[in-house]
């Protein structure tokens, strides 16, 4: 057992951070956020650069043109993407690598849906992965709009860097518009939840950094605000949330089925909380400055809201985890703690 990152994993992560620093610096993020016509489509050049770096093909076997790596490595890369607030249907496109031609190379952005609700980048994606059944299906895009079968309409997206559609329904199989592809849809949904959690994790750590650096620099009442216990304790709780989420996300990337299902639910639940609540606390630490458009904090918060609504909601995860608990309990011996099964109000012990 050695939970720490291997040297290869560290190098992979550093490479991703370097790529993003070069190809997606903060100015790019800000210019996307300021697009007058609303959130733009993903940048095809950047998309292709990611493809060339092996981001999408990461988990394909080497003979299929991939890097033959696994979920742990994917999680590290998506954590970096979340940290940098890289936009685009990254999760769906990695899932689609090997299923949709061009996805693995970064030539074909793919979005995905597991149920009616919101779909990101629907107008610019070239295909939609439908994961609402046992089998995965692929719906080809309609140039410049959403596929008719989805009965979608564009939203004015709360996240300024992610265009959204509200989707009313998914076509029922069998359906001429969507073709079945050889993949296990529930497994892809779980992987999507995990990779989404990894992005939340990156965002959660980034807002810790933003809060701490502001608290060190900003002075109020004659001293850095980071010297006030109230601010210190906000920052401390932010770090704790992020660290707990990290342990959960990394562990979930290593877990085998069926433990993986519960571990991924735990990871999504904790990473969603960490991303949303850390962005909120980061805003509070920044005071009025955090409420401005110019600060990046709202971009983290809004993306965190969006991701929390994708794949597994908190209610889904909590119910799944509760049921896992019950299954685990059935394997437990009654043991020395048998008292938990007794009913103290039972008929034998009445009237004293």
């Amino acid at each position, binding site marked *: 057992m050695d939970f720490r990152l291997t040297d290869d994993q560290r190098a992979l992560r550093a490479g991703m951070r370097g790529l993003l620093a070069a190809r997606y610096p903060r100015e790019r993020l800000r210019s996307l956020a300021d697009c007058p016509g609303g959130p733009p489509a993903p940048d095809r050049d950047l998309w292709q650069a990611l493809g060339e770096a092996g981001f999408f093909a990461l988990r394909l076997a080497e003979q299929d043109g991939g890097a033959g790596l696994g979920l742990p490595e994917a999680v590290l890369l998506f954590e970096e993407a979340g940290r940098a607030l890289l936009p685009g249907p990254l999760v769906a496109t990695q899932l689609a690598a090997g299923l949709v031609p061009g996805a693995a190379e970064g030539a074909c952005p793919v979005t995905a849906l597991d149920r009616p609700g919101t779909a990101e980048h629907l107008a610019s994606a070239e295909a939609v992965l439908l994961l609402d059944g046992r089998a995965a299906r692929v719906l080809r895009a309609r140039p410049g709009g959403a596929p008719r079968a989805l009965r979608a309409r564009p939203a004015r997206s709360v996240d300024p860097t992610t265009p959204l559609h509200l989707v009313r329904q998914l076509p029922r199989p069998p359906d001429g518009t969507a073709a079945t592809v050889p993949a296990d849809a529930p497994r892809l949904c779980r992987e999507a939840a995990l990779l989404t959690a990894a992005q939340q994790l990156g965002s959660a750590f980034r807002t810790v950094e933003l809060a701490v650096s502001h608290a060190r620099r900003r002075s109020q009442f004659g001293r850095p605000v980071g010297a006030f216990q109230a601010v210190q304790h906000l920052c401390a709780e932010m770090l704790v949330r992020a660290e707990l989420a990290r342990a959960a996300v990394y562990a979930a990337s290593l877990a085998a089925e069926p433990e993986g299902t519960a571990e991924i639910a735990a990871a999504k639940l904790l990473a969603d909380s960490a991303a949303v609540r850390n962005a909120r606390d980061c805003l509070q630490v920044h005071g009025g400055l955090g409420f401005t458009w110019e600060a990046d904090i709202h971009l983290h918060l809004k993306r965190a809201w969006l991701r929390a609504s994708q794949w597994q909601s908190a209610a889904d995860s909590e119910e799944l*985890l509760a049921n*896992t608990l019950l299954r685990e309990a059935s394997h437990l011996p009654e043991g020395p703690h048998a008292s938990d099964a007794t009913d103290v109000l039972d008929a034998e012990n009445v009237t004293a």
Partner: protein
Amino acid sequence: MDLTLTKEEEDFRDRLRAWLHDTLPRLPPEPPAEDWPARRAHDCAWQRALHDAGYAGLHWPAHAGGQGATPTEYLIFIEETERAGAPYVGANFVGLLHAGPTIAAEGTAAQRARWLPPILRGDEIWCQGFSEPDAGSDLASLRTRAVRDGDSYVVTGSKIWTSHAEVADWCELLVRTDPAAPRHRGISWLALPMNAPGVTVRPLRTLAGTTEFAEVFLDEVRVPVTHRVGPENDGWRVTMVTLSYERGTAFAGEVVACRRTLARLARTARANGRWDDPVLRRRLGRLHAEFTALWRLVQWNTSEAAHAARTGGHGNPGPGASVFKLRYSQARQKLYEAAAEVLGPESLDTRHEWTAQRLSSLSYTIAAGTSQIQRNIIAERILGLPRGR
């Protein structure tokens, strides 16, 4: 990132499991909670059994009589003993987890030879005399004085929150040897024989109604100078070298136990119908996520400690242990709040184990550094924020 066990680790686990399977059924039943002499005897017998099987001082270095196990093996030991329902470390806690490691790290050869083997064999029990009524979280403000008189220190003062004081042979005692020095200086570490004249123990009743702690009053107690571990006035450093153990793996076994309790909560809720309430069910689901992640955090900290040990570091969990301690103490309280919800009216009956645990869980955000202190440590030592005022 690898959570699978190596061949060596698996072998270690399998041997341990077999031994536990063989040994535990032959143990006498646990004595009543408030019968301290019986509990001492029970805990010592278990320690002797561990010793005879080669598991005593598993994580202690070989030169101190330990087994030199890796942090990972030690974690496996904690997990497996807890899962098997083995006795807790109990009265041997301070000896095995703090006083012993301190003597191992800072004591002379003679001191190690005198004190360590009886700890490992379960022959002698230690207690801890650090906290004082007027010190609280501000441990360094301790006021118990030790005045040098020939070959002895004459010690006067009082200590509080001392577990097992009634049945301990020794007390690891922090005393002020130089009242003029700054707060963290002028403190020394002494091994106090609990049967020395002038030592009075008074049980301290907690809000749970139990007396698991005591106050220790010291009235001109003579302690030989040879009982001092480490240099005079250097006791703060001597203590801190190993104090963080208390915040690291010490809680690992409890996380295993909490996860089992949580599953039992689910089973009980299913049996009494409360499972049908989605509010409660989802709360239990979220606690499941919480404790799953806390266990992963234990594994993460263990991996870091194992790495540090391999590369010559201390294997000291360091300030990162504050992250775990802060969250775990909250989670434990939430667990027993949920238990009360599951039990309903029965939660108002202290005969239910979970009600007793609910009460004792209230100390978790206070003992061994309040949550407020943990947040300060995280903010200042990990995040590098300016010193709070």
